[in-house]
């Protein structure tokens, strides 16, 4: 219950002024953790989407062949693939694009032109069924025995592992922030209880119930948390802007464009209220427990 009138001199309370500052830091940290978690989730979804249902086939160079690009083999493979029922489309990656991709490492000179590069074939499957992937692999293997078939799973699994680890850290950070908030309120409330022991005694003598007194502490904790939480979000906004600016300076294509769903912003906006709820309940329980030890 929240009392409307305050009989406790909580406004001038020196023992809990730090609560607003601490809640500000905690809500700031929570918002960063939430955003990190959401970003990693969105990144995973994006990567998963972009590689699911695709295969990359490398047709190795026959060093003794005259044609270093193994044109005949490539054409046979493309022919087999494009007739396969599980394949939507199969195209060879043009050599110019492959050399373009290698440019950052080898430069644009003749050296690259002479490199015995494998032929890459991009395959888009009409299904992501593992049996279909196997059937396609088998067909390719029988046509070009040395071909390497990559369904990106191994790469994606490692990335997922990393992302999940980071996500777990973000969730752990959220849990720690919640615990820290609870402990902050408990200690601040206990300090105030000690500071106002005599006032509380008087309130008891004139017939105040424990719930009435607890309500006043809870209301104060709510107000402090809302103020601190709001300030935490205000601090978060420019931080997010700064990170977004840093990301925008990276070459396009390395990081996909990710926009957060509306639910993410709703949860972020709810953080101060969530902090307020935790603080209210914690303060109420702390006061009631402390008072229950009295006569």
């Amino acid at each position, binding site marked *: 219950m929240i009392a409307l*009138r305050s*009989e406790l*001199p909580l406004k*001038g309370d020196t023992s809990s002024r730090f609560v607003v500052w601490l809640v500000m830091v905690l809500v700031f940290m929570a918002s960063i953790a939430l955003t990190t978690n959401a970003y990693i989730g969105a990144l995973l979804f994006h990567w998963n989407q972009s590689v699911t249902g695709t295969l990359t086939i490398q047709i190795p160079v026959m060093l003794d062949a005259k044609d270093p690009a193994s044109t005949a083999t490539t054409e046979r493979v493309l022919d087999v693939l494009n007739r396969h029922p599980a394949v939507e489309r199969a195209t060879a990656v043009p050599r110019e694009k492959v050399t373009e991709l290698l440019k950052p490492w080898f430069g644009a000179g003749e050296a690259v032109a002479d490199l015995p590069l494998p032929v890459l074939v991009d395959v888009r499957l009409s299904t992501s069924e593992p049996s279909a992937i196997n059937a396609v692999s088998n067909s390719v293997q029988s046509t070009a025995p040395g071909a390497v078939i990559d369904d990106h799973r191994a790469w994606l699994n490692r990335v997922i592992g990393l992302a999940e680890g980071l996500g777990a850290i973000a969730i752990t950070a959220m849990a720690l922030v919640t615990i820290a908030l609870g402990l902050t309120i408990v200690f601040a409330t206990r300090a105030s209880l000690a500071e106002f022991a*005599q*006032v509380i*005694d*008087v*309130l*008891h*003598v*004139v*017939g*105040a*119930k*424990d719930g*009435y007194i607890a309500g006043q502490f809870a209301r104060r904790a709510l107000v402090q948390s809302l103020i601190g939480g709001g300030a935490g979000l205000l601090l978060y906004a420019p931080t997010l802007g700064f990170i977004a600016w840093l990301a925008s300076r990276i070459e396009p294509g390395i990081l996909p464009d990710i926009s957060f769903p509306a639910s993410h912003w709703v949860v972020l906006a709810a953080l101060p209220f969530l902090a307020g709820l935790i603080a209210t309940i914690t303060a109420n329980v702390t006061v009631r427990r402390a*008072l*229950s030890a*009295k*006569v």
Partner: protein
Amino acid sequence: MAQLRKKSDFVGDTVQLEDVGLRYADGPEIFSNVSLAIPQSSFYFLTGPSGAGKTSLLSLMYLAKRPTRGRLKLFGDDVTDAKRSRLPAIRRRLGVVFQDFRLLEHMTAFDNVALPLRIAKVSEATVEKNVTELLKWVGLEEFMQARPSVLSGGQQQRIAIARAVVHRPKLILADEPTGNVDDTIAFRLMQLFVELHKLGTSVIIATHNEHLVSRFAFPRLHLKAGTLTAMPPATGAES
């Protein structure tokens, strides 16, 4: 007449103590085997030398402490082991004047006096009317919006008394309520207690002031060396 009753007589009294003992932590008993019954609408002085336990005895009655031995009943309710949740309702029938006033410094005189009414959720209109009336009676209408810290000891004491009686309690427990005022004001404050007594309130006033005790024809309970003795009213006093 002052009455120290046998256990079998405890019926319908405002306060009943039965073989009550009180000790702090592991210390010796402050008093032991105290039995008494305060009938409804009675008026008692509680006297005794400093340190005899007057304040402790009062604090049992306003439920700041519980007996370490014996039984305590208030308004017929056995509160010796009563749950905490039952106590606020009982406390709202009490009015307590502390020796050190215990006014809330962050509140005005008006708000201090209004406290018991507001805790009991009395309407603000009634609070306004009753508190203003009472502060006029104790001669502090000019100081309604003053903080206790700017008032003299005597003025603070009057506010403390006003706070104790504003909600028309059934039992008033006052610890040296006239200790900081001159005889004229002391007499006026005593009249307030007497008026409330006539309206049916039981009053127990702990005091050192022999002069005050001798002026009023009320019985006294004398606490000395942990023992409570009943004494008749002073002879020749006004009632």
